[in-house]
């Protein structure tokens, strides 16, 4: 879930009429000092970080003067929370608090509707406030029922003169959540002041990942929950996913090899240091989880979680494999999903075979391709990788993750733990040559060596029917460029089949923007 910082969520709340303390978010000590001067009174300075317990970690500081505020901001902006450096602090007016309450909106999966939770007992501390919680069911379009909200407020110990303002504030929570398609929006505490105001003192908000595309104004660049700032490869993978909606591609780095250049990436858990890293490529969430358990059980550490499923294109599986193999230090590549996949598994086999060939893979790769057309998938993968230095094996639905993981451990032991070094992919000589026949496709370009066309033509006719034709002994497009643009899977199949047939004269060059960017390695 895409999370917003407190100051971002507060700005959205204000738009919908929920008052927040005077103040602003700043990124430098000088700006913090200026913000405190504008407030002209005691302030609180809070780190903007996705965490709970900011107070306990020293992330909240109360200041009486602008000079104190500057010093506090300097210290806070040097903090790190987990893997995230603190980049902003929020400078706000201190409040003269009468009561601490809370209100939060959540999605109630049983009701299939939003629900508002109101903690109105006024105790201090989350536990105290949670003691007496009212659940207020909401209509997805209309929000809470006004009469019910009034009844709940009337029954609370809060001064009745505040009920009008409280009611407006609770409604603002619903309207803000609805407008930005929040999965959760929590105001904790919501405070009343001795001078009779109702304000959001703190605020946490998450946006539905699947709706982020409808809210570009929120500036969410990577709509995924990660416990670290997105790594370079996670950004590359996210962009690749956004560019191709055929099937699902998810990539998250869990552990990385020790490398000072990768300071931004998630560190390896200390207990994992002695356990070699494995590139993991799953298919489907449930099966991936079981397969990762199996490989972890053999004493390996998962470098990355990757899932290509839901009938992905060969190009998507290829890009996933290339991104996985951009991680240094892997001792092997393990692919496994549910084992009984509805998708046609040979598309995945083609994508993997292409990536492994281009990179001249030299670490063991074991791929469970169980499901539709599994025999063909295994045959394609194994036969097209047989010239590689690596052992590449395909498995079917009757092979369990446990057995395959044990075999994987055996192969890694035989290869004496040689670790992977990311490399530049091999390009055939005719790529870029003036003599080659070439045409663009979505996200790339196809190259055909005209010298080998005689051998390629029958393979193209079988694996990419209707796309290419012979014009006087040379290749030509049989359809318009727009009709061939989305046929990348078929053309990748052709490329691999041509190589298997000993006529390696067709190549699909696929872009992965940012993958080999300067300094990425």
């Amino acid at each position, binding site marked *: 879930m895409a999370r917003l910082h407190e100051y971002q969520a507060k700005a959205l709340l204000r738009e919908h009429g929920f008052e927040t303390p005077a103040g602003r978010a700043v990124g430098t000590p000088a700006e913090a000092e200026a913000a405190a001067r504008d407030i002209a009174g005691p302030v609180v300075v809070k780190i903007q970080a996705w965490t709970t317990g900011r107070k306990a970690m020293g992330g909240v500081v109360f200041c009486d003067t602008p000079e104190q505020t500057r010093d506090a901001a300097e210290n806070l902006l040097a903090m790190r929370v987990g893997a995230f450096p603190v980049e902003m602090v929020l400078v706000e007016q201190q409040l003269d608090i009468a009561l601490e309450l809370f209100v939060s909106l959540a999605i109630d999966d049983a009701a299939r*509707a939003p629900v508002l939770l109101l903690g109105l007992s006024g105790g201090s501390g989350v536990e105290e406030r*949670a003691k007496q919680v009212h659940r207020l069911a909401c209509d*997805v379009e209309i929000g809470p029922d006004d009469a019910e909200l009034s009844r709940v407020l009337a029954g609370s110990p809060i001064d009745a003169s505040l009920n009008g303002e409280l009611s407006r504030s609770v409604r603002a929570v619903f309207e803000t959540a609805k407008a930005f398609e929040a999965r959760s929006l*929590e105001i904790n505490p919501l405070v009343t002041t001795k001078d009779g105001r109702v304000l959001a003192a703190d605020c946490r908000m998450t946006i539905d990942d*699947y709706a982020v595309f409808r809210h570009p104004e929120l500036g969410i660049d990577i709509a995924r929950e990660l416990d670290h700032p997105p790594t370079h490869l996670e950004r590359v993978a996210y962009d690749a996913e956004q560019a191709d909606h055929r099937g699902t591609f998810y990539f998250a780095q869990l552990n990385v090899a020790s490398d000072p250049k990768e300071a931004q990436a998630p560190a390896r858990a200390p207990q994992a240091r002695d356990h070699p890293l494995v590139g993991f490529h799953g298919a489907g969430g449930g099966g991936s989880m*079981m397969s990762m358990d199996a490989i972890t059980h053999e004493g390996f550490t998962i470098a990355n979680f990757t899932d290509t499923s839901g009938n992905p294109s060969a190009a998507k599986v290829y890009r996933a494999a290339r991104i996985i193999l951009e991680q240094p230090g892997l001792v092997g590549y393990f692919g496994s999903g*549910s084992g*009984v996949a509805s998708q046609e598994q040979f598309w995945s086999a083609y994508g993997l075979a292409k990536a492994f060939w281009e990179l001249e893979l030299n670490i063991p790769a074991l791929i469970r391709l169980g499901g539709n057309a599994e025999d063909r998938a295994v045959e394609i993968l194994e036969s097209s990788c047989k010239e590689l230095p690596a052992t590449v094996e395909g498995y079917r639905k009757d092979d369990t993750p446990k057995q395959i993981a044990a075999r994987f451990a055996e192969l890694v032991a035989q290869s004496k733990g040689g670790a992977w070094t990311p490399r530049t992919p091999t390009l055939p000589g005719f790529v870029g040559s003036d003599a080659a026949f070439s045409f663009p496709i979505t996200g790339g370009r196809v190259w055909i060596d005209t010298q080998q066309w005689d051998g390629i033509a029958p393979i193209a006719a079988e694996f990419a029917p209707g796309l290419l034709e012979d014009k006087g002994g040379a290749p030509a497009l049989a359809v318009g460029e727009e009709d061939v643009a989305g046929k990348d899977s078929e053309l990748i199949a052709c490329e691999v089949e041509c190589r298997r047939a000993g006529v390696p004269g067709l190549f699909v060059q696929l872009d992965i923007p940012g993958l080999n960017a300067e300094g990425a390695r």
Partner: protein
Amino acid sequence: MAILIDDKKKVLVQGITGREGQARARLMLGYGTNVVAGCTPGKGGQEVLGVPVYDKVSEAVEAHDGIDVSVVLVPARFVKGAAVEAIEAGVKLLVLVPDRVPVWDAMAIAKAAKQHGAQFVGPNTLGVISAGKGVVGMIGGRAESAKAWFKPGNVGVISRSGGMSSSTAYYLGKAGIGTSTVCHIGGDSVLGVRIPDAALMFQDDADTDAIVLFGEIGGSMEEDLAALMRAGRVTKPVVAYIGGKAAKEGTRFSHAGAIIEGGKGTHEGKVKALTEAGATVVPSFGDLPEATKAVLG
């Protein structure tokens, strides 16, 4: 009997002229599902795989004297519009296959369904298959695979994972246990048919003698099923596997929510709730067939 789908129900495919729509229509027709119509705005009058295509769902409903089930295979952002159209046209069961449907759209679909007395499976479902009778969605992928993998029998399967719904039924079949219906309820947080709903349908189904559940961490559906069992509303034996035990470390609950909801959503909480309600919860996925055999006696 089976639940949700059989060989008689009249099925509409929304988005039938698209790549996914055509591929899934081919599977459903090949398996024997009674697919009578397709719907794509602007493509009315065409035929896909011999199935007539209409511009509007209401036209298909009229031409075929009612539609029982609509399978929605349009891009995620159009699912809400397509689903609400079908609900308003009087279709009482929808199967929402696409992944990435925004959750506020899913809740809007739920509201429309409630108003019209309709149900929906999904979003993000692989579909539902009643072995030997019919399939809706994409479960099995191809008709010949679906026929080979799913053996007719007396066990109802409910799964939160798409791939694992096929795996569960396949490994049960290998152990000689057939299924009445396999229902992938979907991977999203707001679902039309939830685990307890599907369990109640299996409870009422004369062809089902036991329920096998592939559950996962998060949410409260497994606990809700346990509550139904304790209340005596689900009395057929339940055999369950709960995935995600190892994943619990990274799972976060919002602070106040974690306090209010108590132990709901965790692996231990789900295993405990189901076990105490009388379900057989197996520690390893591979144990499901043996445990199922044991409860069937």
